[in-house]
């Protein structure tokens, strides 16, 4: 429901520049279409060399792997850092969503893998957090013992995340951040992860097919995919766009595009076509008065989804026969 990228963009750092994102359905038609300064739809466009951003990149000579920080950079980060990690700030709802997301991921992984170590239930598992932002979700997963890799195309977020986790020696060892896109990572890390988490990211992507394909590539067979996103219903228009953006102004206008919301049925169909088996879908609800999230029956607005990559590699373009027996992952008989 929130654009994690919003605050940073609002500072005008990347107001005009857009990021390389090859996840486009058709690049040329979209290039001139959507260029709102405050929108995370920037991923539609190739990077446009912009004097402002060039100047900034020249200042940013350091790659994100170094921890030395330039004082000018530090000042910028301070402003952003307080936004990301201010538990009463703009991202408060993302922090409180951890109360649902973390147990959801933890329990489903424990069901699949069993408890590995007391005190560190996710020890030994490699998890990829796509669109990690400031590391809001990566850190709790790291504390639970998992080996977390957080990726985000926006360098500033990644640096914020690194800065925040650098103080805690536990996190420093277990949580690593990288400023890149999922495609770039998929080339290096084939079948490298036990789980992929894409929380509040789907509603900002243009090309879901490419996303699903990359997830399928980076996951080990039997690996888990966790997605939280917003449904495409009338109710989500009323609450997610009208109420949140225009009436209550929880989120600035233009953050979300209702067209981009995905319904759980569509998402399930998409994932199944890429060799996933959808194991659970649960509805979530945000209460703006208490600032807390809760599970609910209806997936009309927000929902969380857990899918497992089937153990057998599907042939590309394969269409699955509609069969009642297609319940367990890894059944070879239905593939042809």
């Amino acid at each position, binding site marked *: 429901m929130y654009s994690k990228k919003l605050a940073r963009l609002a500072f005008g750092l990347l107001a005009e520049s857009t990021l390389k994102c090859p996840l486009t359905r058709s690049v040329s038609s979209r290039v001139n279409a959507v260029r709102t300064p405050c929108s995370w739809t920037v991923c539609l466009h190739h990077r446009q060399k912009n004097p402002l951003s060039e100047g900034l990149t020249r200042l940013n000579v350091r790659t994100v792997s170094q*921890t*030395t*920080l330039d004082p000018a950079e*530090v000042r910028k*980060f*301070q402003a952003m*850092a*307080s936004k990301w*990690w*201010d*538990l009463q700030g703009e991202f408060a709802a993302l922090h409180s969503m*951890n*109360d649902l997301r*973390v*147990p959801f991921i*933890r329990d489903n992984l424990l069901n699949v893998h069993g408890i590995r*170590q*007391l*005190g*560190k*239930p996710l020890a030994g598992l490699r998890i990829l957090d796509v669109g990690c932002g400031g590391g809001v979700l990566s*850190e*709790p*997963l*790291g*504390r*639970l013992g998992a080996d977390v890799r957080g990726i985000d195309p926006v360098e500033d977020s990644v640096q914020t995340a690194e*800065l*925040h986790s*650098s*103080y*805690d*020696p536990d996190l420093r060892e277990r949580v690593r951040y990288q400023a890149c896109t999922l495609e770039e990572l998929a080339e290096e890390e084939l079948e490298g992860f036990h789980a992929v988490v894409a929380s509040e990211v789907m509603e900002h992507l243009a090309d879901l097919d490419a996303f699903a394909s990359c997830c399928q590539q980076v996951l080990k067979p039997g690996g888990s995919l966790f997605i939280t996103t917003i449904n495409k219903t009338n109710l989500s228009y009323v609450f997610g766009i009208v109420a949140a953006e225009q009436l209550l102004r929880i989120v600035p206008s233009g953050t979300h595009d209702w067209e981009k919301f995905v319904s759980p049925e569509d998402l399930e169909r998409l994932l199944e076509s890429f060799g996933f088996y959808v194991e659970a879908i649960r509805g979530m609800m945000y209460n703006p008065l208490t600032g807390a999230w809760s599970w609910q029956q209806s997936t009309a607005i927000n929902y969380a989804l857990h899918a497992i990559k089937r153990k057998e590699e599907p042939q590309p373009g394969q269409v699955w026969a509609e069969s009642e027996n297609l319940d367990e992952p890894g059944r070879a008989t239905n593939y042809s």
Partner: protein
Amino acid sequence: VKIIDFSFMPKIIRILSKDHRDEESSTSENQLFDIIISGGGMVGTAMACSLGLDPNLAGKKILLLEAGHKKEMDRVPETYSTRVSSISPGSATLLSLGAWDHIANMRCKPYNKMQVWDACSDALITFDKDNLQDEMAYIVENDVIVAALTKQLQTLSDHVKVQYRTKVVKYTWPRPYHVSESIPWVQVTLANGKTLQTKLLIGADGPNSMVRREAGIPTVKWNYDQSAVVAVLHLSESTENNVAWQRFLPTGPIAMLPLSDTESSLVWSTSHQHAEELLQLDEESFVDAINSAFWSNENHSEMVETAGSLFRTALSVLMPDSGSARQLPPSVAGIGPKSRVMFPLGMGHATEYIRHRVAIIGDAAHRVHPLAGQGANLGFGDVAYLTKVLSQAAFNGKDLGKSMQHLLEFETERQRHNLPMMAAIDLMKRLYSTNAAPMVLLRTFGLQATNALPPLKEQIMAYASK
């Protein structure tokens, strides 16, 4: 042609750009703890044990700091010590995670019944479980409790460390907002100059808590004009001794708590002046004073006696089965060799139990009058609940000190439990501090009525046993 050697440049650049944060963190890495508990008394040591035994907190680095020396007890000393506590079944359950076995092996005395009565009238109330076989609570010496917990801690030494003879001189609090280049943890500076860092600081350092003071937590407190005199009593004759006795004198309550078949513990709360006089008395006079305090009826006035007996008759008509005969406590023959001690009494309550990365438990958070024997139990209740809350937070991958949601849950729940108890104890103390006739009548009727209502008594016992 001069060739300028630039080979030193990379080194300089490295030095200039060296992240001093790295330097700081590398030296203090082994001194960053997940939880530091300040204060190794009964409640602090119990907290360390409880955290150490929790499965979700396995692997967390926990440190207990205690200014005194290690209290070990290979064999229980012959003589009883004067400071004892009444341990409720709820607290016994908390301690049963290992330490209770040590306590049972050392020394403890269960009691089945408690009689509380007034000096100014005949009113009395008795508490007991339905069948006198069940234990109401246990009297255990404080030294035994600490020694048992210390023994338990030794089995957890892989992730719970203890530093004895360690005094803290300063606490440095982090900013609640994340600011780059500042340390986000609580820093604890010791007397030996070392500084430790922790993600969560738990203050269990007693009624004059330094943690509470330094954190600036406002406290509501007042002194009772009373001191408690404690001693070990030798009874005239050996008896089953499974009853706790407490009589409310106008100057304050006097209590006799069983320790064994032949010995009991005395806790006599009275005015400062009287307490000093009692300490000065020779043994015989002291013993006489105690016996007379329990037995004499000199504070009875006729009017009150008549009113009291009328009311009792009325009650026995309404509820024939209620009412109990007044029993007299065993008489005292002598006192134990360890000298009598006195200490001042007061009430205190911290308005907040938590701050960013800080929590306070035990007497640091709440201090009560010993008349209800609840001080230690409230502290153990804090320990149990805080452990539960931290365990849940750790299982959700949260930063233990920063998760205000969980810390607030602890504070709310414990304040809801502690405040009514403290209010009741304070009320009792004030109610019984006078021998003015109206108050005496009021409390006489109140006590007799409560005694006549078994459901009400059961509620009171259940609340106190938690």
